[in-house]
């Protein structure tokens, strides 16, 4: 065991938790959220949707399987900090290449261990998500509170700009991947898919590639005209961090593209932006859904899927025009909207994460369903 250094977590309400530091030595502000998945911290750490947030894991033992080169969801870490009860003293997994603390140091992510994480979760559950500051360089509570006061928070901010890709590129990984659940390749030929990257997780791209799409990824701010010009067969709207409201450019792009009748599938932020484009409204949730055990019922089949989720904002059902948009999926825990379908346009979206990574892959079939929709649409159109 190496020498321990203190690290402080101070919340906006002034509550302070002192533990030991791991990962990067530094300081950062973020919105504190908790994730209840018991495995998959590496995927969580590399999920760009956590940009702007400090993630606390409710499972107390983290780092057991170290970090490997395969289970990564983006180029690196975009989150603001990581809080665990106990950091594993040893890595035990045949695929691991490095331990979590060393890797987080490389990724410039501050880690805190040794605090009563359950007490913090109960606080967040009661008060809602809290703004927080994490520091291993400044252990003065007052000073940290002051710094936190100067942080603007995530609501109303465009965080997507900071995590989307820089340029248009293609994606092929995922074809014959040993790690994906079996996805039948439905697509006739290889439909040319435009992906709007709002902070996309790689497993979505892998799932799309595996389903047979010819995938081209566009930066979030790409104008609709550029996509239309490229004459894609279909459109995918990715996940991403933060509040959808300020992303008016993306909402406009989506409105424009979907109105052309382009078959479209959206996940998470992509789902929320689509709702906004269709005239709906989103609101910030008390503490969001972040975990791998959320039950979602498919209202058309009455079957429940156990889903992976990560969102702090949600589409308000009564804001939608029921004549145009149908709610297809609902969260069984709190009855919030989990999926939409347009009644006329070839368009469906889900709030949860069918690509899993981490979490159950019950909904992975949605990639195939999208491919089927594209195929049937193509047939209908021609």
């Amino acid at each position: 065991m190496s020498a321990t250094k203190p690290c402080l977590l101070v919340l906006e309400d002034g509550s302070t938790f002192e533990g030991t530091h791991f990962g990067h030595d530094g300081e950062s502000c973020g919105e504190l959220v908790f994730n209840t998945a018991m495995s998959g911290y590496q995927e969580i750490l590399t999920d760009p949707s956590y940009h702007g947030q400090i993630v606390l894991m409710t499972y107390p033992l983290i780092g057991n399987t170290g970090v490997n080169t395969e289970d990564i969801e983006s180029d690196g870490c975009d989150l603001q900090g990581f809080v665990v009860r106990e950091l594993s003293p040893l890595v035990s997994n045949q695929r691991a290449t490095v331990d979590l603390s060393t890797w987080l140091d490389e990724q410039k992510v501050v880690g805190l261990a040794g605090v009563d994480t359950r007490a913090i979760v109960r606080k967040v559950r009661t008060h809602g998500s809290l703004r927080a500051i994490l520091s291993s360089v400044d252990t003065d509570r007052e000073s940290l509170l002051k710094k936190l006061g100067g942080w603007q928070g995530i609501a109303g901010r465009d965080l997507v700009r900071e995590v989307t890709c820089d340029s248009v590129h293609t994606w092929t990984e995922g074809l014959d991947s040993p790690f994906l659940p079996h996805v039948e390749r439905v697509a006739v030929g290889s439909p040319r898919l435009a992906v709007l990257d709002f902070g996309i997780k790689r497993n979505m791209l892998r799932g799309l590639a595996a389903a047979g799409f010819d995938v081209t990824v566009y930066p979030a701010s790409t104008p609709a005209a550029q996509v239309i010009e490229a004459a894609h067969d279909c459109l995918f709207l990715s996940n991403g961090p933060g509040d959808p409201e300020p992303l008016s450019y993306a909402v406009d792009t989506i409105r424009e593209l979907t109105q052309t009748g382009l078959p479209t599938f959206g996940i998470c932020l992509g789902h929320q932006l689509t709702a906004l484009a269709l005239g709906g409204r989103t609101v910030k949730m008390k503490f969001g859904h972040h975990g791998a055990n959320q039950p979602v019922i498919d209202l058309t089949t009455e079957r429940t899927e156990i889903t992976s989720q990560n969102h702090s904002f949600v589409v308000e059902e009564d804001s939608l025009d029921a004549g145009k948009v149908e709610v297809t999926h609902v969260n069984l825990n709190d009855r919030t909207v989990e999926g939409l379908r347009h009644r006329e346009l070839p368009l469906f979206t889900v709030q949860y994460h069918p690509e899993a990574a981490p979490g159950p892959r019950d909904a992975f079939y949605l990639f195939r369903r999208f491919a089927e929709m594209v195929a049937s649409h193509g047939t209908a159109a021609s």
Partner: protein
Amino acid sequence: MPRRDDLQRILIIGAGPIVIGQACEFDYSGTQACKALREEGYEVLLVNSNPATIMTDPEFADRTYIEPVNVDTVARIIERERPDAILPTMGGQTALNVAVGLHEAGVLEKFGVEMIGAKYDVIQKAEDRDLFKKAMEKVGAAVPPSGIAYTLDEAREVVSRIGLPCVIRPAFTLGGSGGGIAYNPEEFERIVNRGLELSRNSEVLIEKSIAGWKEFELEVMRDRKDNVVIVCSIENLDPMGVHTGDSITVAPQQTLTDREYQEMRDESLAIIREIGVETGGSNIQFATNPENGDRIVIEVNPRVSRSSALASKATGFPIAKMAAKLAVGYSLDEIPNDITKETPACFEPSIDYVVVKMPRFAFEKFPEADDTLGTQMKAVGETMAIGRNFKEALQKAMRGLETGDVGFGLSRKDPFRPGAPRALMPGKRELRKQLAIPTAERIQAVRHGLLAGLTEAEVHDASRIDPWFVRHMADTVKLELEMSEFASFEDVPASALKRWKSAGFSDVQLANHFGTEPARVRTRRRELGILPVFKRIDTCAAEFESYTPYLYSTYESECEVVETPAPKIMVIGGGPNRIGQGIEFDYCCVQACIRLREQGYEIIMVNSNPETVSTDFDTSDQLFFEPVTVEDVLHIHETQAVQGAIVQFGGQTPLNISLGLKRAGVTILGTSPEAIDLVEDREKFKALLERLDIRQPESRIAVTAEGAEQAAAEIGYPLVVRPSYVLGGRGMEIVYDRRALVRWVEEATEASPDHPILIDRFLENAIEVDVDAVYDGKRFVIGGIMEHVEPAGIHSGDSTSILPPHSLPDAVVDVIRDHTARLAEAVGVLGLMNVQYAVKDGEVYVIEVNPRASRTVPFVSKAIGISLAGVAARVMAGESLEEIGFTEEIVPEYWSVKAPVFPFTKFPGTDIVLGPEMKSTGEVMGIDANLGCAVYKAFDAASRTLPLQGTVFVSVCNRDKESVADVARAFHELGFKLLATPGTQRSLESQGIPAATVFKRGEGRPDVVDVISNHEVHLVINSPSNEPEARVDEKAIRTAALLRDVPTLTSVFGARIVATAVESMRRSGMRVRSMQEFHEELQAARAT
């Protein structure tokens, strides 16, 4: 999908007696099923022969059949009750096998009974190895290379193909009975032969051994809409090669990445769908290769199992209850989560703590048995512990196990404890061996190895225990070494103490290390404010509010105990099951909870046994899942304004800590610890009996070996010798001469170092009587008087007993009543009392007084239709028997017979002779208007079905030759053929009873063992002699009988009652009747 309205009457099949591999987890599941189905308005019928279960209490089903759980009897019940459906998934392998048998016999079809929960073809697919293999191949799941054999030759062919080492698994057996790993051809043939014998259809599966791979289990639930959820993942600390029931297991899994876990999850979903488990819980076991992640499916159980009990307790998700609701049509999304109330059960629990389960073994009871752990389960119980880290959970589990380990090391017997003589420390070489061969002690060998200088890598290499677990244990050892940096306990700073407590070190461990008292450690901790908090088990990692106070302790900052104004009583449970302290005590604790809650008390339950009903979160108002130790109970006590604690219902475990609790200020309800001490203190108790003018076998106390010999000479042989303060007759023996006494003294001082040796005269061939009674300080009522079939000297837990007494004269029974009443008053009993008597030549002797709930309380309660434990609990809380309305002894007109069930088949090499040391794991009950039929049913239920015709083999020791004659005559007159060894044959012939002879071992062939092995004998009467030379032959006879399932009587008393049973059953045939009908009869009789 809503409740099925086309069903009205549902028959639940129970698991029968507690045996190794099938224990009280099926009381938990059956009880939940009964409750869930009645809640839905179904009429619930139940069959279970085990009287010690909560589910067989009359209030849990509409009709409860305490009858043998076999195809024949259940068919009769079906014919009589005409249920619409049977639910066979709650009663373990026994219930599944009976359901399969009922289907195959056409009974279900004949009476139009539907199998719900699991269909016939599903059971076949999961159980039939060939079908299973095909199903796995279909979904692309790998299974180990294997083959099926029905003969030894076929087995040889299979092994030539797959190679050694290999695992041999007999089909359709409990707990992997008869299986094993073979490393060489001799071992292979031996295990195959045994497996073919034990398998219901003489079938064994031989598969390539993957010993050393990591082992995982997933608990899966599916409903009729095809919703599937994983309730819990479990990782075994002991790698493949050790039966999961014998493994230390951890939840959730620790060493899989999410990808690897999700692949396993996907495969589980595919498997449960392919097997076709339509509704309910299943358990799937996997192995993964730590080198490359390759995964193999080991086993699927399409029913509630021991692991589902564990998963339920580990997560707060009541699998059995859900499974019952799913079986009658509900889907998971329609059932609320009991803990969060607002969210549905259709989700996967997320836990924010670590759970460790440890098995409890009983090898000390079977010294001849092989204590190596393998594919056949040997554990008799288990304990579960919860912590916020692995070290804490592991240490809590180890101290909850009550094997003398007070955690991971630092017990008094620890050879590596500071100050322990170096000579006792095993060397590295020996330790490597202990690590390589799995036994109950291997976990301690990890610590010993690390302390002796083995590296973590060496420990892993030898044991194949995952490096992650080894590291945590190594870190625990480091913390222990850190203790040595302080000269005395007073020097220890708060920070270090906090660190040690967070890693699960108990006060006792710290006291042992520093050579101080646990109380001193406790006081110091309190001064420094180092106290645990209690956190909730809520299924959701605090994401939602929990409404159910299900708690565990840990060293953290925030405590989640909520104060309530209601009057509170704490009930302390018995911890892990073991021989001598089993489900009976959990039954008593649960009855106390139920009856006191009815009276408006809030019940705080403390226990560490995941298999039990007492640890269901809806049994009490607040459940603390904690080790039953002074330290842990006091922590709970400090958070609650408790009126008092009940320590008399959980067996010896809570009694052992009652003085410690009382000294620390806990009010003990009922009989005072001092009164308990009075009866445990031989001298004081002897004086008391003398004052009361009640006889007792002459006795002495000795504290040295010489003293023992002298005392023996004064009393005269034979003698009963025992250490004081024991339960289940541990270390107790009957000695016939000085040589035996000396040998025993040398060994017995191990059993209880702090207490002296008790030496009593042994009353040979006396009738033993057990009495359970209640006393409220004024009024005394007998619960039941039971006459044992076997003579005094056989542990009461191993005896067959009959209520009411069948052969004792009224005058003797009256003396017993009088003695019991006067004893209750003189001892100062408040609540339950059990007294054991021996009656010899018309004289009544007191053998033992236990001022607490006894093992027979549930049996008596069911026999007389009154919950004795419930009555006693109310007395302890302050009510009088008058107020409760239990003022008179109830003597039923019908007969209730209790018979023990033994684990001998699990411990090859053990002799089945009974003695003062208890060996049974469970019991069954037979009830009938006719005594013989009740006895027959009890034997039938204990899987010792008596023959109605055939051949009886008789071979008795000299002192029994005369008395066995009338038994032999009875069998002869019933038309049985008699077969005897020459000595016995001559004795029988001389009394005019014709018998054929058979060779003794070594005197010619075919000998007695041959004829038994050839199924030519249907009943064996073989009383043990005390000559060591004869014992070897006798043991061979009894072992052969055991292997061939031939009922064996080792006493003439037993044989006599069996003759009556056979005669009665031949005359009247098997009749089934529900317990409620018997009780109604009692009520009617009492009313007139």
